């Protein structure tokens, strides 16, 4: 294994820096500049993985991000482990560890390989068809399938790396730094466009860098030498930013693109420390130039997937760019001239090329002549019919193609080789273009999809728009750039370009073999193990649309999205069905172009920054008091305050009793508060609430119910009239933002004539709510000069007052049914208000209570919580709250809907109280309610919405919505649970203090 497969070191490999790394536990050496793929190939390692379904040995196929086979797990057994990484993109560094995926126990001996032997029995749709029966066995099948299939392992621990997001605004974004991208970016920047040039690779130059030097010349130099000088000039150009190792993942509408900038993956471990690993670039570009190049196509023939079979361009790139020979005995198989370039490149480096197999019957191009001159045997009109070698290719069999290319004839010739470069032509990389909404047209002559209609200010240049010859690329680039950037000239107008003029090719999407297709394995999608056979099966079974065939065969559904094989799939469908390829259309290319890590997507928004939390000014006190918190909307609210190891139940029972027997205190700062002013404020409230507001006196409070236009309860809360034209509205904690939005909507769009101004003041006030029979005494201690007599300060009224010198608003309102006050101060005084209340309440054992106790206390009183007892299908009538719906008002939001035929149905779900026959049983919220136990099917009447054990009544109480519940008072109903049936009786939802005596106590 230690034989040296390096040929000549290219300038991109630093042979002075030796890098050791591990692959599948074995240590190898490479050099700085190597990718994992090139370093493995230099060590004569082709076998890097097993295929997804048949577990066939697979090798490195490409030299770029389109790689379908060589996908590896890096940093295995650490919390930085990452699956599905393309070995062709991993730059090696000292200490890199990577391993093969989808094989067990090892890539050399994989038990799943048995699938290959029985593959005749595993056609497309096998899993759908086979594991359907018996249905309850699925769990057992799944266990087995999951263990033998799957690509890679996801990390089980928290990702320790730092990720970042960055917004970028530029005039021109150029994607791809091949020759087109470089010249485009340079000329854009020179013409004062703020330009960003990105490329997924670590080096600029694209394919031109290793293009054939003999046949591609610019100003009498080889095109690669010429381009290197251009690249050197880039750093002196103002307005131009270059980002390498940056791949554009998504191209959305309005020139909004997402890029992934890879900052540390190529660095040694110690250099990675505390650095940002990857950055998500959110790019809004005025203009976009796509120079994404083209991907070489494989050829589809029998057993075209063995390790050692590679794209011809990849064989060339490994030799030229990395100085690695992929094989000692090389053979090329082609339908165009590209393979000849590769063959010549290898020949010039002294690497043996045994033969070229060409499905064409001739070609007169200069490059073919040069290959002939070099004495390399060319088999015209031949095709590979089979290949051999299990873990590494050792020979290919070829036969003569018939004139129509449909069958093979004559004798079989065997050619030994350990590397087969296949060249099926080029597919323009139009993925980003189509993601942006661009429409493609099919070029029947060249069998390629090309950009047709641009949906935004963008162009495609170079080979991604179908220009493949250097001369044509440069000429068209000049024309297109001038038009796109509206500039007079480009700096490469006068260069003299020489390149090959033609590249004739013939397309045979599925090459014939001497065997029947059923006996062959012509892979179309390597990663998902979909063969031409599977596609034909899908068509036979009636799938016609390309989208259906894709899903049935999984062609193009791997992590590589079928970058190599999609065109062949289309071609085979077209040939089989007789439909033109252009009419078939393509499947949808979806972002991301190459996989993104979750870390990159979320950036810094992890942990406590995942979603923001809102905290009240009293939050520190709650934490010190060991409160358990509940998330309400974005707020952190005190849920309950366990003392001395109490359970939640014990704490809530204690808090609830204390609030009714002496005094309780609640942090109510989170309630939404909207300041409403203007000469039409009263009229406005009349229109948005169900009840009447015009006659509410200044200094008085009123409970209001707000509906949607469909008549369903939307929000509720107490609104106070502070002045003639001034109100303060409270909303539910979770509904505040939506209520403000809804009110603004009506004001701006339906009633612009109203003079009303709305301001959210939720965060401006801190609110302490004290309740219980001793609340009056406590408030008197805090604000001694405020007359708290019922005459001066009755229930549902408001006073302005001062605590020391701090202004406060006090409302005597109650959600618990107890005598209670809500004290509002400027938010910054919230903590001192709370401390004062606690201090003043000490002698009365004032007990802080959380949301759970609040819910329990209000349930005892039968007060609803919007969102808990309602679900967007409850009218006020359903809630038995007819009293709050004004009969006199001509209109309010939702009024007309209250007497639609549907809303007046008697059998709507209506809010009722439920009492369990056994007072100790507390119902489950959400439990279903029935009236008949022996019905089949059983008819659900409704469900429990709120349920508690009431310490003040010493029994279980519940609120529920029940079909026709209004007329069921006293009726016995049943709640069937898993192990028992609970008997309940319909009751009045007001369980406690029905005549409200305590409010004025």
């Amino acid at each position, binding site marked *: 294994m230690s034989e040296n497969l390096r040929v000549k070191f290219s300038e991109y490999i630093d042979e002075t820096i030796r890098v050791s790394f591990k692959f599948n536990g074995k240590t190898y050496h490479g050099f700085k500049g190597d990718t994992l793929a090139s370093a493995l190939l230099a060590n004569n390692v082709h076998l890097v993985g097993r295929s997804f379904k048949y577990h066939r040995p697979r090798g490195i196929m490409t030299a770029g991000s389109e790689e379908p086979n060589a996908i590896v797990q890096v940093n295995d057994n650490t919390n930085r482990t990452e699956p599905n990484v393309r070995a062709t993109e991993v730059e090696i560094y000292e200490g890199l560890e990577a391993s093969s995926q989808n094989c067990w126990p090892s890539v050399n001996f994989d038990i799943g390989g048995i699938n290959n032997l029985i593959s005749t029995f595993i056609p497309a749709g096998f899993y759908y068809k086979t594991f359907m029966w018996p249905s309850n066995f699925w769990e057992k099948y799944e266990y087995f399938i999951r263990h033998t299939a799957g690509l890679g392992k996801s990390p089980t621990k928290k990702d320790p790396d730092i990720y970042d997001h960055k917004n970028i605004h530029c005039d021109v974004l150029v994607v791809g730094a091949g020759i087109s991208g470089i010249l485009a970016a340079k000329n854009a920047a020179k013409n004062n466009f703020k330009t960003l040039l990105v490329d997924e690779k670590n080096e600029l130059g694209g394919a031109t860098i290793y293009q054939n030097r003999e046949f591609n010349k610019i100003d009498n130099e080889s095109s690669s030498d010429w381009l290197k000088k251009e690249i050197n000039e880039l750093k002196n150009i103002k307005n131009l930013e270059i980002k390498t190792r940056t791949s554009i993942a998504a191209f*959305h*509408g*309005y*020139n*909004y693109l997402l890029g992934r900038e890879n900052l540390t993956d190529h660095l040694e471990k110690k250099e990675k420390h505390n650095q940002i690993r990857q950055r998500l670039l959110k790019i*809004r570009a005025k203009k976009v130039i796509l120079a994404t190049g083209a991907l070489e196509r494989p050829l589809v023939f029998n057993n075209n997937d063995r390790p050692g079979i590679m794209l011809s361009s990849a064989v060339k790139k490994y030799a030229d760019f990395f100085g690695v020979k992929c094989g000692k005995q090389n053979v090329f198989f082609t339908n165009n001239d590209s393979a000849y370039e590769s063959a010549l490149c290898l020949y010039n480096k002294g690497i043996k090329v045994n033969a070229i197999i060409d499905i064409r019957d001739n070609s007169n191009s200069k490059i073919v002549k040069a290959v002939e001159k070099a004495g390399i045997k060319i088999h015209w009109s031949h095709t590979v019919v089979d290949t051999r070698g299990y873990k590494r290719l050792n020979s290919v069999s070829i036969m003569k193609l018939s004139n129509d290319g449909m069958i093979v004839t004559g004798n079989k010739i065997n050619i030994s080789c350990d590397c087969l470069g296949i060249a099926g032509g080029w597919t323009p990389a139009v993925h980003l273009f189509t993601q942006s*909404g661009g429409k493609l047209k099919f070029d029947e002559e060249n069998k390629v999809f090309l950009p047709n209609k641009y*949906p935004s200010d963008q162009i495609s240049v170079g080979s991604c728009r179908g220009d493949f010859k250097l001369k044509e690329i440069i000429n068209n680039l000049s024309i297109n750039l001038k038009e796109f950037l509206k500039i007079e000239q480009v700096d490469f107008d006068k260069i003299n370009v020489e390149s090959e003029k033609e590249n004739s090719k013939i397309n045979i999407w599925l090459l014939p073999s001497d065997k029947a297709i059923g006996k062959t394995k012509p892979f179309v999608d390597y990663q998902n193990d979909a063969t031409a056979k599977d596609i034909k099966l899908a068509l036979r079974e009636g799938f016609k649309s390309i989208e259906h065939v894709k899903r049935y065969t999984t062609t193009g559904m791997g992590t590589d999205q079928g970058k190599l094989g999609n065109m062949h799939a289309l071609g085979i469908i077209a040939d089989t069905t007789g439909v033109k390829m252009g009419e078939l259309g393509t499947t949808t290319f979806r972002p991301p172009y190459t996989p993104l890590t979750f870390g990159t997507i979320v950036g810094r928004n992890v942990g406590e920054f995942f979603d923001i939390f809102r905290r009240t000014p009293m939050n520190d006190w709650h934490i010190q008091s060991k409160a358990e918190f509940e998330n309400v909307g974005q707020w952190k609210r005190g849920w309950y305050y366990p003392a001395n190891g109490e359970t939640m139940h014990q704490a809530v029972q204690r808090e609830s009793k204390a609030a009714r027997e002496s005094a309780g205190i609640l942090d109510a700062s989170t309630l939404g508060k909207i300041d409403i002013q203007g000469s039409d404020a009263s009229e406005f409230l009349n229109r948005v609430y169900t009840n009447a507001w015009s006659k509410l006196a200044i200094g008085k409070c009123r409970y209001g119910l707000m509906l949607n*236009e*469909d008549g369903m309860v939307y929000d509720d809360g107490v609104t106070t009239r502070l002045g003639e034209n001034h109100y303060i509205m409270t909303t539910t904690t979770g509904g505040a933002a939506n209520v403000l*939005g809804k009110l*603004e*909507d009506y004001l*701006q*769009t*339906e009633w*612009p004539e109203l003079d009303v101004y709305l301001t959210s003041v939720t965060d401006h006030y801190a609110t302490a709510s004290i309740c219980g029979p001793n609340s009056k005494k406590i408030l008197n201690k805090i604000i001694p000069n405020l007359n708290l007599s019922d005459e001066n300060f009755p229930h549902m009224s408001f006073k302005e007052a001062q605590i020391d010198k701090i202004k406060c608003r006090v409302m005597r309102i109650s959600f618990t049914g107890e005598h209670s006050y809500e004290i509002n101060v400027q938010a910054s005084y919230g903590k001192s208000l709370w401390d004062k209340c606690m201090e003043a309440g000490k002698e009365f054992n004032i007990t802080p209570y959380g949301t759970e106790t609040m819910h329990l206390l209000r349930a005892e009183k039968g007060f609803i919580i919007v969102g808990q007892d309602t679900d967007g299908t409850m009218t006020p009538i359903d809630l038995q709250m007819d009293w709050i719906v004004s009969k006199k008002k*001509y*209109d309010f939001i939702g*009024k*007309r*809907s209250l007497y*639609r*035929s549907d809303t007046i149905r008697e059998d709507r779900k209506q809010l009722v109280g439920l009492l369990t026959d056994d007072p100790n049983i507390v119902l489950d919220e959400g439990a279903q309610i029935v009236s008949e136990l022996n019905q089949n099917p059983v008819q659900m009447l409704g469900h429990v919405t709120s349920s508690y054990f009431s310490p003040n009544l010493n029994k279980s109480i519940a609120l529920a919505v029940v079909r026709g519940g209004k007329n069921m008072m006293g009726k016995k109903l049943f709640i069937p649970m898993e192990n028992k049936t609970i008997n309940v009786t319909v009751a009045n939802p007001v369980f406690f203090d029905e005549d409200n005596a305590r409010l004025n106590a």
Partner: protein
Amino acid sequence: MFLINCPYCGERDQQEFKAGGEAHIERPKQPTELSDDEWAEYLFMRKNIKGIQFERWNHAHGCRKWFNMVRDTSNDEIKLIYKMGEKPPSD
């Protein structure tokens, strides 16, 4: 991701906006005069066109103003933006 030209603030990212459904559906001035069917027409019926559609948008994380947008839903092209209360273009 749209770039929306708020008539009050200028071009802003779509993230700052909230879509508010079909535009130019006026709330009936006298709902009580309407039959169930007529009220349902206002309440429930929306066009959801593939092609040119008139929409309401709100600059929720900006000036909070509502405005109208003419958008081609087939390719997301924003054809026109105009203020609330202004008449929709006739063509």
